[in-house]
């Protein structure tokens, strides 16, 4: 097997779900409310779009109010959805804990709650969830790096924002995979994480962070960005400073623009975190639940490492993201 495929077939926690479900019941009376963290990132915009279309595909009524990047606003948004009399709440929590009280209140009012994309604290009595396996995604990238680059690695990480649990899982998974891979090959590790910058999950932030990282640590030879958007920003600086061939760029998510970069070899790998799969899956779970089927509490989307080799399989020119 090629290396990537082998990696992708590694053990997976949680259950993967099969797609293409048709409802037996008429769901047209069901009101589904979706609340995302914000609408200011293309990832969330794409996810909202998929959720909406999936809800409508099952003939259910769709309502939405997003958190506008502030947990208090997300709480208010959920409350406002409840005021509209939704029976199903699909929630992408801005924070795992902060929405627990309002989610439990919703459940007490008879609303079933589904979690998508970001995990919620276990105190919330939600019905089912779908998330990407961030740790595993990180591990895949780490392993891949250990297996493809044998020199001394001077790694810079560009993280999203402080305290974000997803980012933490991603980078810790990465470190774990990298250490594990190197140990397996050389019985010792040979990497330094020389800097961590903060890029606010966006292009510009990534650019700024990279600029400062390179000024202070010009010898960096690996960049791990916790999402592709920041990697795209950072690439601008890397290119500008003529270090295109010196730095291995790794990202997360599988954004369309990142796929272009993979194709041309500017990026080396990213780990899939597809809003399309997430959105379709969660609504399918909603539909199954409404049909009286039993659904798993925790579900993962497939973890896939995407590189130049397999990028064409995942590229969708029409995708929003």
């Amino acid at each position: 097997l090629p290396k990537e495929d082998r990696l992708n077939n590694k053990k997976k926690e949680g259950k993967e779900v099969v797609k293409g479900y048709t409802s037996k019941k008429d769901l047209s009376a069901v009101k589904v409310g979706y609340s995302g963290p914000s609408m200011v990132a293309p990832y969330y915009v794409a996810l909202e779009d998929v959720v909406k279309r999936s809800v409508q595909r099952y003939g259910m009524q769709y309502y939405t109010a997003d958190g506008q990047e502030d947990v208090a606003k997300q709480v208010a948004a959920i409350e406002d959805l409840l005021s509209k009399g939704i029976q199903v709440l699909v929630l992408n929590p801005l924070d795992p804990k902060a929405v627990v009280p309002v989610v439990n209140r919703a459940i007490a009012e008879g609303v079933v709650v589904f979690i998508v994309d970001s995990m919620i604290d276990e105190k919330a009595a939600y019905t089912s969830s779908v998330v990407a396996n961030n740790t595993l995604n990180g591990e895949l990238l780490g392993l891949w790096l250990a297996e493809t680059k044998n020199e001394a690695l001077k790694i810079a990480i560009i993280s999203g924002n402080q305290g974000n649990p997803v980012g933490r899982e991603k980078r810790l998974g990465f470190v774990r995979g990298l250490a594990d891979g190197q140990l397996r090959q050389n019985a010792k590790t040979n990497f330094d994480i020389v800097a961590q910058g903060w890029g606010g999950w966006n292009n510009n932030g990534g650019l700024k962070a990279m600029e400062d990282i390179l000024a202070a640590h010009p010898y960096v030879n690996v960049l791990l960005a916790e999402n592709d958007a920041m990697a795209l920003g950072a690439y601008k600086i890397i290119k500008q400073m003529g270090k295109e061939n010196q730095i291995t760029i790794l990202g997360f998510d599988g954004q369309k623009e990142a796929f272009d970069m993979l194709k041309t070899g500017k990026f080396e790998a990213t780990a899939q975190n597809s809003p399309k799969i997430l959105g379709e899956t969660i609504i399918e779970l909603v539909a199954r639940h409404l049909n009286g089927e039993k659904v798993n509490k925790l579900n993962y989307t497939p973890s896939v490492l995407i590189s130049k080799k397999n990028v064409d399989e995942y590229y969708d020119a029409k995708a929003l993201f």
Partner: protein
Amino acid sequence: MKKELLKNNTLIIFLILLVVSSLVSNSFLTGNNLSNLLRQVAPIGLISIGMFLVILTGGIDLSVGSIVATIGVVFALLSYEVYFPVALTISLALGIGIGLLSGYLVAYRKIAPFIATLAMMTIVRGAGFLFSKGAPISVGPHSSAILTLGTGAFLGIPYSAWILMIVFAAVYMVVRYHVFGRKIFAVGSNEEAVRLSGISVESVKFSVYVIAAFFTAIAALMMVGRTGVGTANIGIGLELDAIAAVVIGGASLSGGRGSVLNTLLGVLILGMIGNIMNLLDVTSYLQQLIKGVIIILAVVFQRNQK
């Protein structure tokens, strides 16, 4: 009170919005939604009342959003260490402490309020991030009582709304009937004359920042009560909402003019706008745009009064 209401157009704007809201969405006038609305506006209401006092003296406080974040974090951290009343007291005291510092910078160091509180805004939020290491911290088991504050109700009205009403009534009384209230107005209209009348302008200015920070700390605890976590990235831009509420309430940013009652109406107006747009499924982009337009319309309408 009647005169105060009639002097401005705030009440009219409020009533128009109320009628429009109940017409366009039949979820609006439900008990559930109204109690949601109250819960949502309570913290920003408290903050706006504090902001109102600051603005009356001709000042401004940009640090309130950061205070909300940091006090929330501190309370959550404390909730693991000490009992609820102690955590509560320390958090409120810290809020007051921040107000003392802002007040000191403005009143005694004579730094322009915009700049002093802008600096405080980044300092306080930076501290919040430092304390929390950026992570949201859930409230410890000792202090789950705070959740009651955030989510409970008495006579069908959320506790937080009760607190808002009490604070409002107290400030209303002080502004109208207390020596301190009168000094605040006077300082906002002519500092020099006030100083020469033997009133310490500094202590008046100092006090309003302390009071505003104190109210904001209470609001922070309300928000922790609603979410159960303290997190340092909450409340960004809150100061602008509070200022907008005060101005929609007809107060003048140069000080000396305004009313608490109309400030409260301003808060309700902004809260209702957000609520009704959520009920109508307006996307958050459009919400922003519409909110901006409504602020301008409200202010222009205010101006056309008399």
